[in-house]
C-alpha cells in the first residue's frame, strides 16, 4: 500500500533526525569535555 511508505517514513524522519541531533550533541560535548576537567563540571 502506498500509505505504508508515508507512515514508516514519518517514524524514520522522527527518530532518525533525533538520533542525528543526539549524535551531534554528544560529539560536541566530547570535544569540549577534553578541555574541561571532570571536577569543574557542576553536574558531576
Amino acid at each position, binding site marked *: *500500500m502506498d*500509505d*505504508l511508505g*508515508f*507512515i*514508516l*517514513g*514519518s*517514524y524514520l*524522519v*522522527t*527518530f532518525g*533526525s*533525533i538520533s542525528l*541531533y*543526539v549524535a551531534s*550533541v*554528544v560529539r*560536541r*560535548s*566530547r570535544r*569540549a*569535555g*577534553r*578541555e*574541561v*576537567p*571532570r571536577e*569543574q*563540571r*557542576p*553536574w*558531576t
Partner: protein
Amino acid sequence: MTTTSERNVTGTSFTRGLGIVTLLGIVLLVILGLFVSPADVNQGESVRIMYAHVPGAWLAYLAFIVTGVSSAAYLWKRTRSLTWDRFAGASAEVGVLFMGISLVTGSLWGRITWGTYWTWDARLTTTAFLFVTYVGYLAVRGLGGSHHQRARRSAVLALLAVLEIPLVHFSVRLWNTLHQEASVAGRGTDVTMDGLMLFSLFLGVVVFTLMYVWLVLHRQRALALQDMVEDTGLDAALAARRAEAAV
C-alpha cells in the same frame, strides 16, 4: 583524569537511567503505534503517524514556553544566571528540532488523509511562523560576543517572540475563518479513540517528554562546557598576553 577518549561527558546516573527508560519507551511506542494499535475508522492507517506527530508538536510548544520562562528568569536581576540562558538556548534548539519534525510528519499525514501536504489552516500556519521565528532566535544566539551579551540579546528576543505568537495566531485565524476553502483542515480529524489508541498517544507524550528532558539536560551541559572552554581559553590567552607584557 581527563582522557582524550572520554565517552560520557554530559551524563550522570540520572540521565543514564532516563536515557534507558526513554529508549525502552521509544521501542514500545514504535511497536504499539505501528503494529499493535488498530487503524482508525475515519483516518485508516494514517492515524499511526499521530502517535509521533502530536506529542512532537506539543513538546515543541512546551519547549518554547520553557525558553520564554528561562529568558525572563535571566533578565530578572535576582535570578540572573547564565544557566538560565543556556536552558533557554537548549530548549529552543530542541523545540526547533521537534517542530521541524512535526511539520514534516504532519504534512505526510495530510498527504494521506487530505490528499495534500499543506493546508493554510491557522494552527499549521502559526506553527510554520513559530518555526522560522525560533530559527532566527538560534541565529541571533550564534552572533558571538561575550556570554552575557549573548544572553541579554537572546533573552529580549525570546520575550519578543512570546509577544509575537498570539498576534500571528490571532491574525492567521481571523484570515482563515474568512477563507472557507481552507476548511479541509476540519475533515478527517474527528478521531474516535479506542482504549489502545488513546494509550498509544499517551505513551507518545510520555516518551517525547522524556526525550525532551534528556536532550535539554545534555544540550545545556554541552553549552556549559563550551562556555567553560571559552573561559579557559581566555585564561591561557591572558597568561600569554601577560607574559608578553613582562618581556
